[in-house]
């Protein structure tokens, strides 16, 4: 027992526990940002200006169509190189060597992102930042599609009435359409949230050491030569713990989303809203 408590509090395990915070932080940052991407995407897709609408629809179609893993592998490297290329052009205009030499991607030292001399935590934060952007773009596309559907599901009579009252198109959108669409979008968005929770292990593809990486590393066989805490293949127990963690996360989210749904259904012309009306009058 004492052995186990010492084992569970050694340095590597603190990195393991810290990675849980990393995953939670990713969720906390990505969810609103992705929702923002989705909102803008949906607004663009239903725009009356054709190029904007094409842009919105193109974003939704392309990102939704590309497999997540391919997107994560390719996009992050491309994004990183795009940043460095831009900085290279601005910061080192005198550079004459080609940026691509065979397989190598070479920019001047000053254009490196983060700078080669930056401490390791800066590199890790930068990697985390790239992860947030990538997750947001991917999940933003799905969210855009859901919100687009939600906007169209708002009864048309509501919009016509708003127009009849003399509201401008902008007013109709912000005051009538947006507040009412959430109830239609929420089931789809809650699905996305669940998928996002489960997609966090993809972080490891992006070089961020997440809980799955540490579970694999810590659970692996340790021989007494290289550690004070030798043990056999314990990966099963570590992954069991992750299973419980993920199930707990999704369960808590389910409860939260149910409460939110109830709140949004108030006064809506939907089956859920009707049920609430009956409850309050009865």
């Amino acid at each position, binding site marked *: 027992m004492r052995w186990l408590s010492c084992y569970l509090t050694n340095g590597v395990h603190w990195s393991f526990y810290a990675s849980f915070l990393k995953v939670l932080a990713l969720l906390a940052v990505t969810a609103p940002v992705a929702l923002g991407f989705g909102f803008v995407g949906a607004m663009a897709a239903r725009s009356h200006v054709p190029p904007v609408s094409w842009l919105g629809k193109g974003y939704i179609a392309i990102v939704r169509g590309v497999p997540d893993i391919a997107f994560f592998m390719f996009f992050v490297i491309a994004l990183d190189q795009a940043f460095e290329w831009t900085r290279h052009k601005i910061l080192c205009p005198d550079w004459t060597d080609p940026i691509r030499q065979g397989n190598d991607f070479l920019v001047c030292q000053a254009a490196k992102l983060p700078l080669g001399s930056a401490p390791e935590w800066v590199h890790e934060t930068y990697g985390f930042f790239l992860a947030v952007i990538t997750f947001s773009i991917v999940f933003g596309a799905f969210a855009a599609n859901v919100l687009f559907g939600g906007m169209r599901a708002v009864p048309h009579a509501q919009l016509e009435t708003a127009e009849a009252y003399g509201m401008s198109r902008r007013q109709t959108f912000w005051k009538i359409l947006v507040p009412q669409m959430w109830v239609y979008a929420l089931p789809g968005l809650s699905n996305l949230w669940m998928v996002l929770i489960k997609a966090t292990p993809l972080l490891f593809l992006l070089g961020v050491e997440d809980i799955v990486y540490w579970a694999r590393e810590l659970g*692996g066989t340790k*021989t007494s030569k*290289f550690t004070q805490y030798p043990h056999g293949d314990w990966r099963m127990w570590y992954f069991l713990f992750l299973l419980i963690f993920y199930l707990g996360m999704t369960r808590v989210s389910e409860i939260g989303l149910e409460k939110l749904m109830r709140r949004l259904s108030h006064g809506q012309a939907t089956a859920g809203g009707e049920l609430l009306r009956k409850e309050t009058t009865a």
Partner: protein
Amino acid sequence: MKNLILTTAALALTAGIAMADTVRMGTEGAYAPWNFINDAGEIDGFERELGDELCKRAELDCEWVKNDWDSIIPNLVSGNYDVIIAGMSITDERDEVIDFTQNYTPPDPSAFVAMSDDVDVAGGVIAAQTGTIQAGYVAESGATLVEFASPEETIAAVRNGEADAVLADKSFLAPIVDEDGELRFVAEDVPLGGGVGMGIRESDGELKEKFNAAIQSMKDDGSLNELITKWEVSSTF
């Protein structure tokens, strides 16, 4: 003229910065005794000690980075770190994509490990880590190859019967076989690869020369052999 002076000054300045720049060392951290994560969560092992010593001799400021084996070469060429020091054997295929310093361990045999002595390593199912020289060897030997992303998984495959045997560096297998009553070395050892070296971008000739010189100096004064013996990673020079 004025412009010329300015550019030379700028060049001198950037050269000065490049000199003092940190060299980022990429490793896998899952291949004891070569490189692994110790109880404190830090990178440790033969290559950690070797790398730190080489950096001291080459007067470089080094920083350690962990990276998955699968993507260790792509991340080097795209500039996320400057050196691969991860027990990587020097092979012609890899040499087409990146450059290697001179080897810091001599070519050493790989070994088969299995649960029983009567395994057919020429025709059975053999586990190896993806993208290693061992995987390449098994694929050509006529045995059925099963690949895994990490070294740990190749051992687990033998334990649970998914593979008949695993082929890997002998120094990696030895401590595992020592502590496991069921696993044992089988068949003949296979000589593979041209020794282990540091992987460096092809365009980074200057860095390669610095490390070559540092490795040579460690070979000359015998300190490299001491390190090899201490960590039991291979035979000595």
